[in-house]
């Protein structure tokens, strides 16, 4: 028993230190790139990046971080759920768009709904649409053995073109070539956060996201379904042998994943910031950001809360860095280096293991001498 708990501790410790190390090295890389680009402005720019703009406008920046963290937290949680079942969901971009469209559409068109249902029902509809969109690659993987990475990427492009057509057919605002604005009564409640953090777009979304992350943690760690999910992720043939329906688990896990990511899309666009879905051909970045967040959190839904806040912190910092004459894509460079560097997790874990073994050996030697 003692041995097991120690093993667990080294494991999570290794994961944690790998994440922190990955984040630090990612930041270091950003600093190097800034130095190469413009040595004179590099240091002030870097300081702005790592202080998340809090130095400049503290309250607004905090509110913005909460607002920015909301959608990417949902994306991270979605990716993490799928990862637990060893399903690599790259379809975040598409699921995000579908959810965003359904959310905006519901908020604009469903005027018959009373009171708070005006924003609650579109959110639920968005989540369901995301689950439905993710159903197809799940089924293709489970029953036709189609590589889920490729199928979800194809679905991303399909989602983009489909949403473009749908927007043009229904809720198009041609002057800005994007979706129409959402009526005030259908936007997400601010809960006084706009007074607490003036000038920011913080709203109820952040609480919803955090609550869902905790819920997902409970489902994964404390329920039979969660157990099956993790078992399938570790060894699917053993799973089959044990009588778990591994095909169903794959499909359900990616559907939950799609639902969460789609909900993230709806939460982002229903915040009432006046931001609409643009009709153009590029993919929303949130799907990929979700991957960084999940990997950085070691695929733990609770860790996702922290890592989403961290990435949001950098994103807000990245917005302020533009005043130093740098391009905001620097944030993407940091996040992708973070994912790449998390490959080092294994290396660090091996290192921790050897350390623990050495310590144990020493301990045994000691006790032997003592006797």
């Amino acid at each position, binding site marked *: 028993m003692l041995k097991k708990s120690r093993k667990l501790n080294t494991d999570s410790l290794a994961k944690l230190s790998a994440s922190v190390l990955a984040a630090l090295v990612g930041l270091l890389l950003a600093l190097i790139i800034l130095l190469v680009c413009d040595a004179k402005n590099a240091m002030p720019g870097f300081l702005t990046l790592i202080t998340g703009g809090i130095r400049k406008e503290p309250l607004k920046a905090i509110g913005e971080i909460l607002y920015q963290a909301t959608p990417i937290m949902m994306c991270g949680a979605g990716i993490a759920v799928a990862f637990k079942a060893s399903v690599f969901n790259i379809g975040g971009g598409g699921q995000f768009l579908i959810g965003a469209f359904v959310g905006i559409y519901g908020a604009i068109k469903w005027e018959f709904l009373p009171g708070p249902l005006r924003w609650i029902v579109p959110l639920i509809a968005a989540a369901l649409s995301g689950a439905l969109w993710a159903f197809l690659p799940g089924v293709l993987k489970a029953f036709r053995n189609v590589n889920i990475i*490729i199928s979800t990427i194809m679905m991303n492009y399909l989602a983009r*073109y*489909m949403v473009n057509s749908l927007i043009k057919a229904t809720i198009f605002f041609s002057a800005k070539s994007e979706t129409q604005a959402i009526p005030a009564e259908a936007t997400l409640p601010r809960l006084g956060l706009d007074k607490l953090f003036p000038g920011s777009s913080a709203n109820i979304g952040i609480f919803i996201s955090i609550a869902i992350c905790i819920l997902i943690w409970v489902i994964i760690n404390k329920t039979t379904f969660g157990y099956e999910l993790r078992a399938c992720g570790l060894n699917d043939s053993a799973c089959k042998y044990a009588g778990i329906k591994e095909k169903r688990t794959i499909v359900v896990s990616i559907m939950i994943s799609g639902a969460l990511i789609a909900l993230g899309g709806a939460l982002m666009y229903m915040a009432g910031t006046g931001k609409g879905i643009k009709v153009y051909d590029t993919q929303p970045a949130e799907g*990929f950001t979700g991957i*960084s967040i999940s990997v950085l959190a070691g695929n733990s839904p609770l860790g996702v809360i922290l890592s989403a806040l961290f990435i949001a912190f950098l994103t807000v910092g990245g917005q302020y860095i533009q005043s130093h004459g740098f391009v905001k*894509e620097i944030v993407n460079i940091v996040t*992708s280096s973070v994912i790449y560097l998390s490959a080092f997790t294994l290396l660090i874990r091996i290192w921790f293991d050897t350390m623990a073994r050495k310590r144990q050996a020493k301990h045994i030697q000691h006790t032997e001498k003592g006797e």
Partner: protein
Amino acid sequence: MTVVYFVAKSCLCFFIPLLVVAVAGLFSEKSGVLNMCLEGIMIIGAFAGTLFMHFMQDRMSGQLLLVCALLVSAAAGLLFTQLHAFAAIKLKADQSISAMALNSFAAAFAIFVARSVTGSQHIAFDNTFRIAKVPLLGDIPFIGEIFFQDAYITTFLGFAIILVTIFIFSKTRFGMRLSACGENPQAADSLGINVYRTRYIALAISGALGGIGGLIYVIPISPTFGGDVYGYGFLAMSVLMLGQWKPVRLLAAAFLFSLIKTVAAGYMSIPFLSDIGLSDNFYKSLPYIITLLVLTFSANRAIGPKAAGQPYDKGRR
């Protein structure tokens, strides 16, 4: 006739890069390393090549510039792929995660550097590489018109690459050894083949070809490069699956995909298609829908190299 000519011409524009990048994937996966970062490699290759052309086009021009740019793309792709090789071979990391990270890194890096260096996300270059007519060969009816008029040397390079690849995998010791590392690395190792080294070499080739593929893709279709190859690397992966990891079949698979791509991009110029009146978004979706369909009906049968995606651990021999 002009329609056939137009379709054949634009088909070729899509066919060559798709083929080259699929071959890039082939080298990597045959050796046992999944290469899902073809997209990123293409971006880096196209980025390095176009940036080189952007700055050097005043000093040299025409075919010399193109050849130099291709070399730069190959070198950039090769170096970039070493990051994947390091993670996949040395660190034994999850190959799809490392690849996805590199994909997003490539896009961010290309846009960031392009904006910082040229002031715009889109790197512009002058296309001075078209050969109006190859003497003699250009006079052959039909074939001459398609292949040897308004041609790029990259077309011939593409065909040369696939021929050499077919030769390598069917006739050379290196090709056999490379395949052995992807099928059964333990057995390969026991026969004295250095699995790690072979995989590093395979990925280097893969990176160089992927980089070249990125530049070949950009040159005929656009005068600028904006940091995106629109899922082309992933289409190439589907070509690889459809072609069942066999060099000769890749030709047929790449041809099928380039035909679809041609229809999607140029349906306005094809009389009976533009008459149907389906929406632009439908045609844009077509290549992706077909890919899904093709995979649905072929993935169960398409069994790639057995050890692809598994890090090789010498201790498990």
